[in-house]
């Protein structure tokens, strides 16, 4: 089936175009125009038609499609782009707020074109080559359509991070608990077995029998407790007081925990602040959008013009923004680190609660109990605030809590002191006191061991979660990267092929795109250059080479991923590429993209002419509309006409009596020939500081080069004759002596034009009209067009 192509493009009240109709008839378009004449508006109209937006107007503060899309004299609802497709002459239109409804046969075209991946602008070249690997991944990913895979990978990574944070925190707590057990026993206790041995050793030192297992610890403690002869309630009180003294001895938070709290809070506040700033900007953005929607009662998105569900749009954007902020690497690491701090705070709250449970039963501690109750409440409130801050919902101030911590420490010390006094009042013998102390130690060890068992179990669960989350993330990430790398590998051949066509016999080879497996979304670009392998092309290549590499990457990806969209648009992308390479780019486009409908714009007259010559050489001139924008003004927009050959155009001016205009056009024609000759024949010219070369600068150099180069070839005399004929013209004399051209006669202009045309013919292949080129390695001057049936070739004699 014939792929659909653009038959007719109608643009109304769009950007700098009040009204324009381009009848392409399914042919490709080569469009020439100076800066500010509306070339890009034509491209933007095609972009708007397929995507509902204009990328130049997206995401720029104070600029919008609604305000800046329509022509300055028009209202947004007057802006319209219509495209008629062939076969079938199906005409569809797009306006702000109404999208085209393509029939089935155009659905795949619209789906692909809607991603905008078929348009290349100069600004995008930088994203392919000159951006960092992350930016490059995004730029290439946009063509490949990996955005949703990226979003899924991010969610899997966040899940892995969270489970890792929980498992790490469990492990840290477990280590701390063993450390505390070691401290309680005064001996190494890094395992439960070691703890039981240490406890038995301790029992022996107290004069009690060894303990065989933690299972019998209650029975064992009761036996020891029986040695205390006091009344039961006094014994219980003594034990509780001992426990209280022990609990109150511990610091409110350790110094390490306190420092972690300080650090994590600072990082949380930094993320929250950025979050808040983004929300302020976003709120303004949304409010502005709401007003537009309410005022226009439109169902189009005010940001992109797409049809939207109004009730769904704003909450969705807010949710997405929150998600973006939550998903930053910084937020991810803060989340993981804050789990440990939260647990330390929870442990403090639990300890204060345990102290209060005992202290409330002891009359002597009434005053401190009251103070500690308030302090415990303050700790709970702080924990609540910290928890919210951990979700980046608010900032957290640790200064106040630091003061609170000092006060709690003082209260604990007061409680410990009062508990010791009360304990002494009970009046235990030395042996009884040691028995109470040991029973209390048994209780503390038992609690710690229970805690260790609980933590160990929790760690097991979290490790299991982590293993699953890690597996999901790693498998997804690896498959995604491998598939993308496989795609890159597949395309490297095409990239290299295009690059080699553009730069034959040049240093850079083996263009490689590589997914950086150690990073989530990153693509490295390398070339072998000047004997060094796998170099970043930015290290050695010129700006023009980098741009042409970007074009090759774009073309390779478009070839693979934009199969159903017949369009390929290159909007003024050859700015930094020299004449010889531009010619080769035109060849690549006509050889490898002949099945596409190309839209190529340029401000460069030389490339325009070269492109046309190559169209002719490839016998494809019938597949192209070669057009030029001759004029533009605000009321009429661009004035576009079919291309008229230079000679014909100059002669038309002469016929109309415009001698001055004809002479100036002929002067520019000669400048173009001389500049082309300089590039094609490697003509040395004297360097000018301002890089502006006129006919007076170029003509002697070109003549000298041609004369020297062609000596003995049989062509020397023919060229010399052409130069001499040119010398004889009055117009050239006037140009060289910087005289006004307005006084020359029509005959003088005519003879100058004839001389210029003859000179051009000398440099052009008679068969295909391509400008000849010097091939140093073969010592020949030859038609560079590989498709030329009868290429001109001059063998040089040295």
């Amino acid at each position, binding site marked *: 089936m014939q792929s659909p192509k653009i038959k007719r493009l109608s643009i109304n009240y769009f950007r700098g175009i009040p009204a324009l109709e381009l009848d392409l008839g399914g042919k490709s378009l080569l469009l020439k125009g100076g800066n500010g004449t509306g070339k890009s508006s034509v491209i933007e109209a095609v972009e708007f038609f397929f995507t509902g937006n204009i990328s130049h107007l997206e995401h720029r503060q104070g600029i919008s499609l609604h305000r800046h899309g329509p022509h300055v004299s028009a209202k947004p609802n007057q802006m319209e782009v219509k495209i008629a497709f062939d076969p079938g002459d199906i005409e569809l239109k797009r306006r702000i707020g109404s999208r085209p409804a393509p029939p089935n046969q155009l659905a795949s075209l619209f789906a692909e074109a809607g991603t905008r991946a078929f348009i290349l602008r100069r600004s995008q070249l930088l994203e392919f080559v000159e951006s960092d690997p992350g930016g490059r991944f995004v730029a290439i990913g946009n063509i490949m359509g990996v955005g949703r895979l990226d979003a899924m990978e991010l969610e899997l990574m966040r899940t892995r991070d969270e489970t890792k944070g929980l498992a790490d925190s469990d492990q840290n707590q477990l280590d701390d608990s063993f450390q505390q057990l070691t401290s309680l026993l005064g001996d190494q206790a890094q395992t439960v077995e070691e703890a039981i041995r240490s406890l038995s050793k301790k029992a022996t030192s107290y004069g009690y029998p060894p303990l065989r297992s933690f299972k019998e610890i209650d029975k064992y403690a009761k036996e020891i407790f029986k040695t205390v002869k006091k009344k039961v309630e006094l014994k219980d009180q003594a034990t509780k007081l001992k426990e209280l003294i022990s609990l109150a001895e511990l610091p409110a938070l350790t110094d390490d925990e306190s420092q972690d709290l300080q650090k994590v809070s600072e990082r949380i506040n930094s993320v929250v602040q950025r979050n808040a700033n983004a929300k302020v900007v976003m709120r303004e953005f949304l409010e502005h959008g709401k007003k537009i929607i309410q005022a226009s009662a439109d169902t189009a998105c005010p940001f992109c013009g797409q049809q939207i569900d109004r009730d769904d749009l704003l909450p969705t954007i807010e949710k*997405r923004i929150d998600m973006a902020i939550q998903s930053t690497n910084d937020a991810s690491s803060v989340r993981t680190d804050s789990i440990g701090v939260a647990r330390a705070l929870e442990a403090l709250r639990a300890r204060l609660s345990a102290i209060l449970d005992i202290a409330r039963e002891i009359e002597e501690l009434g005053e401190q109990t009251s103070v500690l109750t308030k302090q415990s409440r303050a700790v709970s409130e702080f924990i609540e605030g910290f928890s919210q801050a951990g979700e980046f919902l608010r900032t957290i101030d640790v200064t106040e809590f630091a003061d609170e911590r000092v006060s709690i420490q003082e209260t604990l010390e007061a409680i410990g002191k009062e508990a010791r006094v009360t304990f002494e009042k009970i009046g235990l013998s030395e042996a009884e006191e040691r028995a109470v102390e040991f029973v209390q130690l048994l209780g503390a060890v038992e609690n710690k061991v229970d805690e260790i068992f609980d933590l160990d179990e929790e760690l097991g669960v979290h490790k299991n979660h982590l293993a699953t989350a890690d597996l999901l993330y790693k498998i997804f990430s690896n498959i995604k990267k491998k598939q993308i790398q496989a795609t890159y590998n597949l395309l490297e051949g095409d990239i290299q092929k295009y690059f080699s066509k553009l730069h034959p016999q040049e240093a850079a080879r083996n263009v490689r795109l590589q997914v950086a497996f150690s990073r989530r979304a990153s693509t490295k670009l390398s070339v072998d250059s000047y004997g060094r392998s796998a170099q970043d092309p930015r290290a050695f290549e010129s700006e023009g080479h980098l741009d042409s590499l970007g074009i090759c990457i774009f073309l390779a990806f478009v070839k693979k991923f934009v199969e159903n969209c017949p369009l390929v648009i290159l909007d003024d992308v050859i700015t930094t590429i020299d004449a010889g390479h531009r010619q080769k780019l035109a060849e690549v486009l006509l050889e490898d993209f002949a099945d596409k409908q190309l839209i190529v714009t340029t401000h460069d007259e030389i490339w325009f002419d070269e492109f046309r010559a190559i169209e002719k050489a490839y016998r494809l001139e019938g597949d192209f509309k070669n057009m030029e924008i001759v004029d533009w003004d605000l009321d009429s927009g661009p004035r576009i006409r079919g291309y008229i050959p230079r000679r014909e155009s100059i002669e038309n001016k002469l016929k109309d009596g415009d001698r001055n205009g004809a002479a100036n056009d002929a002067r520019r024609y000669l400048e173009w020939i001389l500049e082309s000759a300089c590039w094609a024949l490697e003509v040395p010219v004297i360097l000018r500081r301002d890089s502006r070369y006129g006919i007076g600068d170029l003509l002697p150099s070109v003549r000298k080069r041609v004369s020297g180069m062609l000596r003995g070839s049989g062509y020397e005399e023919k060229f010399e004759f052409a130069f001499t004929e040119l010398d004889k013209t009055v117009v050239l004399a006037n140009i060289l002596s910087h005289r006004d051209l307005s006084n020359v006669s029509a005959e003088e202009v005519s003879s100058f034009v004839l001389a210029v045309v003859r000179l051009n013919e000398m440099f052009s292949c008679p068969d295909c009209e391509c400008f000849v080129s010097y091939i140093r390695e073969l010592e020949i001057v030859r038609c560079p067009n590989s498709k030329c049936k009868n290429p001109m070739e001059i063998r040089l004699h040295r």
Partner: protein
Amino acid sequence: MGRRLVSSELLRSVMVFRGLETEVLEAFLTEIKKEGRLKDSVMVRLQELVENRSITKTKLMDLIEENAKSQDKAP
């Protein structure tokens, strides 16, 4: 940050290039199944999440917890 999000995810509907996306997702599910770490019922839920492109951290955490519980119950 918001800039990229709005352009690439929210406002632009990426309905095409399903080839690469589908290949990755299918290979992912096949590989996970081959690993045998997920119980059948959990695998079905994961498949639903993947097919609906609705993977979120919260849903994944639920799924992982459910998988761990069903592992506990396993004889």
